[in-house]
């Protein structure tokens, strides 16, 4: 118990010790798990190789046991590929190969009496470039054959071999005559495609594990540092953060605080600028508003957002239509036609109102993707409101839009507004980056 509390005291002694301890624990845990996974993977890889070797050895042994040593021996004295003996053994090897798709090639070889030379005897392959009886057999896997010769037992090659036909593993097994003497060797080459694939898969897994482990290590370390430095981020500017003297993070804290002060000042300056430009904008808006109002004799009203709300809520909604497609412009016109006819407006007045609605709705289609038009009944007549979520209008182009008619002027945009200004009795316009709101009043009697 005493030891444990000592350890705890040591652990809580300083941030550096704490962090070092934590990081060390994390690292060793991660390292351990990676090593464990690697062991598991490579163990399996060896297991695969072992299984494969056993398989190929068994194949060679089975093939060897099926071959009659006496018949094979007779080919030594009569090396004839058209002989009954040769055909018999070749057929046997071919059947053997046909029954196991993974056998790449199978043939028999034997050691010559003179020197340490070997020759091919029977090859299952009977295509053009097969090994002919008596062809010199180059001993590459000499160790294996030596070994095999000494023990007279089947054996597999140690490693995979690769030639132009692919990667394979070989198995060797002795062919014996009736007296138990070895008269030749069967060699089976088995393709290792599956194994290679498997090994590549395992390799990828190992790589993935390594990357994952590395990522985890970085993440853990980052988290440990972040957690330890978190108090620095919790400060309330412009107050300074108090850090205990002698703490490792003192210097760091001071730098952070200085940076914080800098940012804070920057922010204050930006806010002041913003406030100024907002006031500036409001001033311009008010000038426009007053000028337009007086020039139109109280007809054209520029609105700020709060005012737009009260205008858009006055009276009762008679009907509503979405303005999304060009065809909706026609629908809007038909609606106002119907309403004004019911309200017994003069045909001329109805035509003019339709023209205004057409212009306003067309603006929505051209400059915004979506808008809603409402026809409302107010005390003195009919109010049509159109609200869209487009980019809004530029304030300084507004006078031109409203007062210059026709195409003789260079400003081609907004001639619709000239028409609206001519035929609507009262116009309210509010525009911002969030969209544009337009209301047009059509009074039954042409008075304001």
């Amino acid at each position, binding site marked *: 118990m005493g030891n444990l509390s000592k350890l705890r005291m040591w652990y809580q002694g300083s941030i550096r010790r704490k962090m070092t301890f934590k990081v060390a624990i994390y690292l060793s845990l991660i390292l351990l798990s990676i090593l464990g996974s690697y062991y598991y993977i490579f163990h399996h890889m060896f297991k695969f190789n072992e299984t494969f070797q056993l398989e190929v050895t068994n194949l060679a042994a089975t093939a060897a046991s099926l071959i009659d040593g006496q018949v094979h021996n007779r080919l030594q004295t009569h090396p004839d590929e058209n002989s009954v003996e040769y055909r018999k053994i070749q057929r046997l090897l071919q059947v053997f190969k046909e029954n196991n798709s993974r056998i790449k090639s199978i043939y028999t070889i034997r050691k010559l009496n003179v020197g340490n030379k070997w020759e091919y005897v029977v090859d299952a392959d009977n295509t053009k470039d097969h090994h002919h009886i008596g062809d010199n057999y180059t001993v590459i896997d000499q160790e294996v054959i030596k070994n095999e010769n000494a023990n007279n037992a089947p054996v597999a090659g140690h490693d995979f071999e690769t030639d132009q036909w692919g990667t394979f593993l070989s198995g060797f097994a002795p062919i014996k005559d009736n007296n138990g003497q070895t008269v030749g060797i069967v060699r089976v080459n088995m393709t290792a495609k599956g194994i290679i694939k498997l090994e590549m898969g395992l390799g990828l897994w190992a790589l993935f594990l390594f990357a994952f482990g590395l990522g985890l290590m970085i993440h853990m370390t980052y988290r440990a540092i972040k957690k330890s430095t978190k108090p620095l981020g919790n400060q309330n500017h412009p107050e300074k953060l108090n850090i205990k003297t002698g703490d490792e993070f003192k210097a760091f804290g001071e730098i952070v605080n200085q940076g914080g002060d800098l940012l804070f000042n920057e922010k204050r300056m930006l806010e002041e600028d913003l406030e100024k430009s907002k006031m500036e904008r409001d001033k311009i808006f008010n000038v426009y508003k007053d000028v337009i109002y007086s020039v139109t004799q109280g007809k054209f009203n520029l609105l700020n957002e709060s005012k737009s709300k009260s205008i858009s809520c006055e009276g009762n909604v008679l009907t509503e239509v979405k303005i999304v497609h060009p065809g909706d*412009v*026609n629908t809007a016109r038909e609606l106002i036609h119907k309403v004004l006819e019911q309200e017994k407006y003069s045909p001329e007045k109805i035509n003019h109102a339709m023209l205004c609605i057409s212009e306003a709705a067309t603006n929505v289609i051209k400059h915004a993707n979506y808008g809603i038009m409402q026809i409302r009944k107010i005390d003195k007549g009919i109010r049509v409101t159109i609200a869209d979520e487009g980019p809004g209008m530029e304030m300084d182009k507004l006078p031109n839009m409203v007062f210059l008619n*026709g195409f003789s002027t260079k400003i081609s945009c907004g*001639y*619709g507004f000239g028409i609206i200004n001519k035929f609507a009795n009262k116009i309210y316009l509010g525009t911002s980056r969030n969209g544009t709101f337009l209301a047009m009043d059509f009074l039954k009697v042409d008075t304001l």
Partner: protein
Amino acid sequence: MLLKVKTKIANEVATLHFDGVLDISTVESIQTSVNKLIDIHEVNLDFDKVTFVDSTGIGTISKILRKLNSEGVTATIRNIPPGVFEVFEILGLPEIFGEKVFQIKNA
């Protein structure tokens, strides 16, 4: 369709009869039917059955007139209903292209 266009061609003179409205939903078809004309030296746009025109429609008409003029083709707009001609006037078309180009329908 909100607008039908019938084209008649005789002796290099094309007459286009419009029936319907000229607004944002129909201006494309007007432009297309005029663009189709080839080897013509005179074009008459008959507005007898036009019920409505707004500034988008007028904009297209003025574009067409400008194009035909630049190609040396004589163009006139005939039988314009008075209500429709009002919009032509507000937007100053007779001023730009000349009073003779526009002929109002007799009541």
